[in-house]
């Protein structure tokens, strides 16, 4: 892995981390920052910096409950899927092939603009001021929270949920193939 952040600047990453800390703060267990949600978001924005891009983890198991560690081998994308995911992440950038329904603003731009709007001094603000700025940037905050939750509770291979810390805190085993659950575990309290 490259040093973090892979796509955002250090300043942007600091703002992102401070925002994630307000969204899912730590209590006695890890919050979004401790779990690595900012790293998840940065890896998503920089998905095409690696080959294969980190869009879809492989199957059929992660190795956490036996079986092969397939999640760590990411799928190669087809030409069309690469187009779709580049549109989503990078935006259409004036490329005709990506603008068959008009321009698309990508997540990279949305994050660049959204983090800038929170302010370069965001990480030094009081919690109340940070919350006020997050609420003022409602649309960006909604997307950020969606991704923050993915980074918190998605599989660790995507860059967040470090060592399944978020799953363990909610007593969720996560991906259980090929172990599965016994009939008794399904039917009994």
């Amino acid at each position: 892995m490259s040093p973090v952040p892979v796509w955002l600047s250090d300043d942007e990453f600091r703002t992102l981390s401070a925002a994630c800390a307000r969204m899912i703060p730590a209590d006695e267990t890890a919050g979004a920052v401790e779990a690595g949600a900012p790293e998840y978001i940065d890896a998503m924005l920089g998905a095409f910096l690696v080959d294969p891009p980190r869009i879809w983890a492989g199957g059929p198991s992660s190795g956490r409950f036996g079986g092969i560690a397939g999640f760590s081998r990411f799928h190669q994308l087809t030409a069309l899927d690469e187009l779709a995911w580049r549109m989503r992440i990078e935006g259409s950038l004036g490329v005709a092939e990506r603008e068959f329904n008009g321009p698309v603003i990508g997540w990279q731009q949305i994050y660049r603009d959204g983090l800038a709007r929170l302010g370069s001094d965001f990480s030094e603000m009081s919690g109340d001021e940070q919350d006020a700025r997050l609420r003022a940037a409602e649309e960006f905050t909604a997307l950020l929270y969606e991704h923050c939750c993915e980074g918190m509770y998605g599989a660790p291979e995507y860059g967040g949920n470090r060592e399944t810390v978020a799953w363990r805190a909610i007593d969720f085993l996560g991906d259980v193939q090929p172990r599965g659950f016994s009939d008794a575990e399904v039917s009994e309290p």
Partner: protein
Amino acid sequence: MTVDAVIVGSGPGGATAADVLTRAGWSVTIIEKGRNHLIDPDNPSRLAQDYSNDEIKFMHRHFLGPDPLIEPRTFRLSEDDGERSYVGAVNSIPSTVGGGGTHADGKVPRFRPEDFRLYSSHGPVDDAAVADWPVDYDELEPYYAEVERLIGVAGTAGANPFAAWRSAPYPMPSGAPMYGAVLSSAAAEQQGLHPYPAPTAANSVPYDGRPACNNCGHCAYFGCPIHAKGDPVAMLQHALSTGRAELLSETFVSRVNTNGREATGVDVIGPDGVERTLGARHVVIAGGAIETPRLLLLSGLEHPLIGRHLMMHFQTINVGIMPQRLHAHRGRSVTHVHDDCMIVDDGARAAARAAGLPWIRGGLVEHGGGGHPVMEAQFYPWGPRHRKLMAESPLRDRLWAFIMQGEDLPQATNRVDLDPAVRDVRGYPVARITFKPHRHELVASAHHGPRHIRVLEDMGATWTATTTSPLVEGAVTNSPFGGAGNNYRGPISAIPASRHVMGTTRMGTDPATSVVDGYGRMHDLPNVVVADSSVFVTSAGYGPTLTLVALAARAAAALAG
């Protein structure tokens, strides 16, 4: 080269047609626009290892397709909304080898006899095209039995007092009941309801060379990592094993070619982007009730009813938060259901009368638990309470739900047509959905919903709520899951969440009031056969898969002679 049949779509309908036709000695080419993550076409005993218990990939990153950025659809409630009011994901039933079968949790109930003769049994309803089907239950029963064996269905004959007759037992016994369903079934029985183990296309024992389900809990919306699910994998395996079937994935059919009297084949665009023409003596179309009419319209076929009478089940979602943990992340998503709301009894008749309707029917009610943690996290507000809510898990581990898949009456104004401006990545007009439920659905929802709130309270629920999908003005809702009005974001919106799409090339004997005949053959082009839920005349209140597969088997058998 001209094959006996080109089959458009590799989902349950197309796969079944391929199985039946290759068994009869036909050569077929199965064409799928999505990727292949299911089966090695050159060695069909080898199944892919791409599915996994990965919420990111399956629920948040479009792994099974379609990706709404390159294959959007558009939506509007009615023509009053202008050309469209939304562009994006509309009823994204998977676009991948195996189609909708790959993501479903595999509940495969049969319809009952009255579902095929709604007009004769119950009579007309104003502003709805209630009609009988040109096929009845007794005629379809042998095909139901055959496809239950093909897919591999686990169930308990005799457990549902409302079930129709059957000529054979289920091929497998029911799998393990989920803990929450054990509780909800007991409470439902106390309320006079009749829950039973859902007939499920997931192996309870090893079957047809595939293993038994190991209860991993990633069933609905996920592909099965061990192929214990009866997605159409078995039919594709059989068809490909004959050596008479070819499977082309990542290949889009842009047009059905005709010579004015019959179809001569299709135009396709392959993964390399190159267009070519395939010759075929027959064209079987099984793209689902949205993509099938889209293809017919892209081909310039002009029957005025193509795309009309689109139906999507009207969901009434009753949820309760329980004092104890229910661990619904173990097991098959839904193990129990009941049919009571399908029955027109005195209560339903009175509610209909009070609303000025001749009758109402609800739908199958599924007993199910909460979803997965990313989705759960997104439901809670951000801030200091987030971690505490996740740890207590009211909306996942303590949630229990009754979801009624309500019968949606056919209306000519509910339709699929070609969007006048929005295009897919290949430059073709996308499907535009114009859809608004009939008042019948709202009245049935309001009548049958409250009873399930009482069951949830009997189970010990400390909090309950009801909502519907689609969210519509006049429907009961007090849910935390989505906004009100014409909101198009989130799981609950004005766009129906049910993946049960039906209608759009309805079958019948009269070419003036139907697009295809009782065997799915287009009245105008008899060598074009529709083999999916597009042919449904009415929607019943049951998931469409088993019925569409039985109809596809029957249509293919008729085609092969």
